[in-house]
């Protein structure tokens, strides 16, 4: 796996506040190797480790994208939802930014059924079939459609299980992480000082509270994916 230059510099990360952790009382002792200091009741993560892990993760994403793998980005926090959606659309990946429905991956056949229903409703709407129904039925179907759009809108292009899953906050998305572990899907996770670094395959110690820090890390990962895809297009 060749190491490439990903424009990761520590000053940028300091500005975005990637090094802030959660309060001292809420820490997970397994994060001890990744914590460098304690300041004003908050743990400070070691940025050299973060930078190194981030660059290795980007290399991995580059390789995977050039081998045509499928990615899924999961981030359901209110603050991060918008940036997750935009990042995924930019990188042409699937994403989940509203609630992660339990069993989305482990119960994939059922999720597929819902996706079929979603597609059928969309085709109905496009061909104007909804206007021919009585008002009550049409309203019910529209409600179903909007519900499916919020929860499944990001995965509507997913035909099979993803190959790599990127999770934004481990505490929030614990169910998603558990599903990936049972299925054996490699995961990249943003770890904060109250998370367990051994659960995910690749953990990047960073701040998951600040929007700027999430945006920065997502940006780097998205750039890596785009580069990988374009390298595939250049030489398949």
């Amino acid at each position, binding site marked *: 796996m060749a190491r490439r*230059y990903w*424009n990761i510099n520590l000053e940028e990360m300091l500005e975005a506040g990637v090094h802030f952790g959660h309060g001292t009382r809420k820490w997970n002792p397994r994060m001890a190797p990744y914590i460098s200091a304690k300041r004003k009741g908050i743990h400070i993560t070691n940025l050299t480790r973060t930078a190194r892990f981030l*660059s290795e993760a980007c290399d991995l994403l580059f390789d995977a994208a050039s081998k045509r793998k*499928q990615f899924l980005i999961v981030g359901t926090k209110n603050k991060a939802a918008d940036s997750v959606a935009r990042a995924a659309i930019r990188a042409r990946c699937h994403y989940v930014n509203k609630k992660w429905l339990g069993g989305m991956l482990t119960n994939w056949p059922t999720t597929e059924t819902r996706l079929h229903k979603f597609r059928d409703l969309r085709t109905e709407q496009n061909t104007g079939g909804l206007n021919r129904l009585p008002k009550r039925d049409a309203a019910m179907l529209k409600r179903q459609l909007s519900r499916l759009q919020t929860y499944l809108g990001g995965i509507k*292009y997913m035909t099979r299980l993803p190959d790599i899953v990127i999770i934004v906050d481990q505490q929030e998305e614990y169910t998603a992480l558990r599903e990936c572990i049972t299925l054996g899907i490699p995961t990249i996770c943003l770890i904060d000082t109250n998370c367990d670094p051994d659960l995910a395959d690749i953990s990047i110690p960073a701040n998951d509270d600040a929007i700027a820090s999430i945006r920065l890390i997502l940006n780097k990962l998205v750039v890596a994916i785009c580069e990988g895809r374009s390298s595939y297009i250049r030489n398949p």
Partner: protein
Amino acid sequence: MAATTAAAAALSSLSFLSPNPPISFLFPKSTKPFFLSGSFRSLSLSLAPPRAKASDIDTAFFDDLDPEEEVVFDPPTPPEGFTPPPAFDDGPDETEDEIAAAYEELYGPAYSGVSVLGNDVFVMDSKVKKTSAFGKVKKEKVRDGFEERVVQVRRVTKVVKGGKQLHFRAVVVVGDKQGQVGVGVGKAKEVIGAVQKSAVNARRNIVTIPMTKYLTFPHRSEGDYGAATVMLRPAAPGTGVIAGGAVRIVLEMAGVENALGKQLGSKNALNNARATVVAVQKMKQFREVAQERGIPMEELWK
């Protein structure tokens, strides 16, 4: 932004992982039929979970990461004329059509309901198993080389306000006779349904048994699960499997020809089957131990 909609190559990239074809089961011969219902229902068969294979993603750096060691961050030098690419928020806003076209190029129209590049919108319909048109379809092929044997079928009751609700709980051991076994449980309102569910469950937790060339274990071992303890001991060729009930069935389905086994704790069939699996997982081949410890195999036999 690097994802260009360049030469629209028709990508048939959907062939990496194909979900397993639907499983169907032969009606197994049940050793102790407790209660067979007269009517057969056609049951909805469940797919095995499609497992993702990560064999060609190289996570070498993260697999043997020692958290205590000092990590140095020395990025390679930036190539000349390197401009940082725009952030995903700042770039030019793309219209929905462009986005849809880009996604469709990569993944096909999938479940989006619209097709910008002119592909067939209903391409995913072929993946749906047609829940069959007429009558009951019973697919009777035995698949993937695993044989099933029912260990125990019990009638269990849940008491509700209206009376008693009866279910059947089946414990099934699945194995090829070459060293792979799995134990599964399943409950349903009818025996056959329960047996099928438990077979699906068993196929999900399959374990490999280390065996010698005389079809016996490498060494003694004990395993426990719940209150059941099982002791397993290798035997000379010609002995056969000398064990009771659940333990015997598990060993037979694994293909072990010569072994001794004893249920030491509780006599519960399910827990004993699971305890044998635990005991067998604890065993190691002599070759592996010699390699791990770095000593020749002769030392282990002393």
